[in-house]
């Protein structure tokens, strides 16, 4: 096993998780449960494909992907903040909606319910191992940058405050719902970038191409105890397990079922408190008046 190709592959696999998990952390730290990461990624992947296809520029695709994520993030925010709908139910509904919407427009735009035509992407030199893709670097930086914002800026303090004790935050004049709107919108854009990376790396959108990556990101958020850096490390860890399985090349040393189980099993272990306490933001899931 070549260490360079191992590390490169691990990073490439981790990028979609990293984007989605940091998105999940922002929203959940503000008190909004984020089960919709999978749907946001799918929308991001599709919007990026549309944008790149019609403009020819992957950068326009990135912008379109972010816009798609923003729109779906705002739908989530509207339903959970304005209308105080159950956050878990809305999250699941958005995942289902994303599958239907992307397929509908895929058919409308390209007359196929399976995949889009080939689009441009970034990089493409075999020797670069994928590191000639600017999105890859953005993905690696997402978690540390978010950590800086959350812990070192006044806005980050407000996000954490409305997630822990919205009443106290409101009493000192912080607009709880405004902060939450912003956090969920940012979460939508970040998670969408995970999908954008997938679509541009694949030079194509295929129906439901995120295949469960959003749920692995949700697992990483919980396993990382709602901390951006720890969640990022969890993403790298899950990606490393997957890479190990790929690189062991059909030797069946580790059954693939086992690898696929890891993120979810660890999430249960983390929630059960077996590796220290996993404390969610106190106001997570609670809407405010």
């Amino acid at each position, binding site marked *: 096993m070549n260490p360079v190709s191992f590390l490169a592959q691990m990073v490439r696999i981790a990028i979609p998780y990293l984007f989605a998990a940091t998105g999940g952390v922002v929203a959940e730290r503000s008190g909004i449960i984020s089960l919709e990461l999978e749907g946001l990624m799918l929308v991001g992947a599709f919007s990026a494909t549309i944008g790149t296809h019609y403009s020819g520029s992957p950068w326009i695709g990135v912008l379109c992907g972010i816009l798609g994520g923003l729109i779906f993030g705002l739908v989530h925010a509207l339903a959970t903040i304005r209308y105080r709908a159950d956050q878990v139910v809305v999250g699941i*509904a*958005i995942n289902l909606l994303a*599958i*239907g919407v992307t*397929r509908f427009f895929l058919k409308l735009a390209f007359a196929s*319910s*399976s*995949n889009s035509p080939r689009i441009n992407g970034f990089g493409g030199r075999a020797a670069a191992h994928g590191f000639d893709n600017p999105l890859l670097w953005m993905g690696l930086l997402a978690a540390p940058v978010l950590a800086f914002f959350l812990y070192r800026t006044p806005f980050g303090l407000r996000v954490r405050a409305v997630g822990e004790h919205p009443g106290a935050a409101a009493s000192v004049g912080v607009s709880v719902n405004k902060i939450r709107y912003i956090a969920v919108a940012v979460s939508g854009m970040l998670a969408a970038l995970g999908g954008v990376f997938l679509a541009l790396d694949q030079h194509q959108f*295929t129906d439901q191409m995120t*295949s469960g990556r959003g749920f692995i990101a949700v697992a990483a958020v919980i396993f990382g105890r709602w901390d951006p850096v720890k969640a990022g490390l969890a993403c790298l860890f899950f990606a490393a397990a997957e890479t190990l399985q790929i690189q062991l090349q059909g030797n069946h040393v580790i059954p693939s079922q086992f690898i696929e189980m890891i993120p979810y099993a660890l999430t249960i272990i983390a929630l059960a408190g077996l590796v220290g306490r996993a404390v969610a933001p106190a106001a997570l899931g609670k809407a405010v008046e």
Partner: protein
Amino acid sequence: MRKLLLVALTLLVVHAALLFAGGRGVAQSSKAGATNVGIVLDVGGRGDKSFNDGAYAGADSAARILGPNIRFIEPGEGSDREAGLRLLAAEKMNLVVGVGFIFSDDITKLANEYPRTSFACVDYALSVDDKGNVLPPPPNVAALKFREEEGSFLVGALAALVGKSKKVGFVGGMDIQLIHKFEAGYRAGVKQVCPDCEVIAQYAGVTPDAFKNPGKGKELALSQYQSGVNVIFHASGSTGLGVFEAARLMNKLAIGVDADQYDEAPGHILTSMVKGVNNTVYDVIQRVQTGTFKGGIYSFGLKEGGVGYVYDNRNKALIPDSVRARVEQLRQDIIAGRIKVPSTR
């Protein structure tokens, strides 16, 4: 609470509407007295340039030549599949076709509920009882099966002869018996022409998601190419599009599946192991139309022209004449029964 219900309900309705929207069949005008055929497509749907498009093409030419009314349904998630079949059966279609192994259990169940309707299932998976005996399909079900291992054997030989390295690759979708057939035939084909070659076989996952995960397909293929593999055969639905993407990036070769996939990565597709889904679907519609439909197991292999590999003007340059001759000889050997191709690993 009321608001919550309203939001959830609205989203659900929109979701369902979008799933079924736009699914216009080829023959919308229903002609009185004509045969009615309903077809439920598998994961992937139309435009997959593979399996479903094959079924669609077969039904389309049947509609034009034989004139039955045909209705297509493209289900979204798992539960929609049974609903789609049930809808068609309840509408008293003469023939209901499920395209894909995933319909096997639902078709078996519905066939017992609607004994007067004819059913056909492409890639029908025979079920097994507690004692391990194979259960035949119900009498009104035509189980259309392909001997994919025979076609895979030929492309395996091709991969080993053209690849010029001691390693050849295989990427499967979901880790199940149906895909193991491809792997087993492929392995045997490789070993036939190159006994000391190593076959690296990997699967994208253990759920149906593994058939639509191009990201995983690309990473699997990249690691195989980096370890010295020159040709990879995929049997993994749209996951295979990732394999082709890796072939482009590494400037290596890949082998398509089900239909001619040359256009997905021109110059990098050595050949494709094709399944004649279109002909079998056409055939079963014709049988229903002429009243000669009979349930049972239908098996299509090299001999029946049900499987094969692509060799045409576009990929000719990639396959030397001597290799072509060798593979054609193997085809004759299999048809004549001189070579037995295994169907299990």
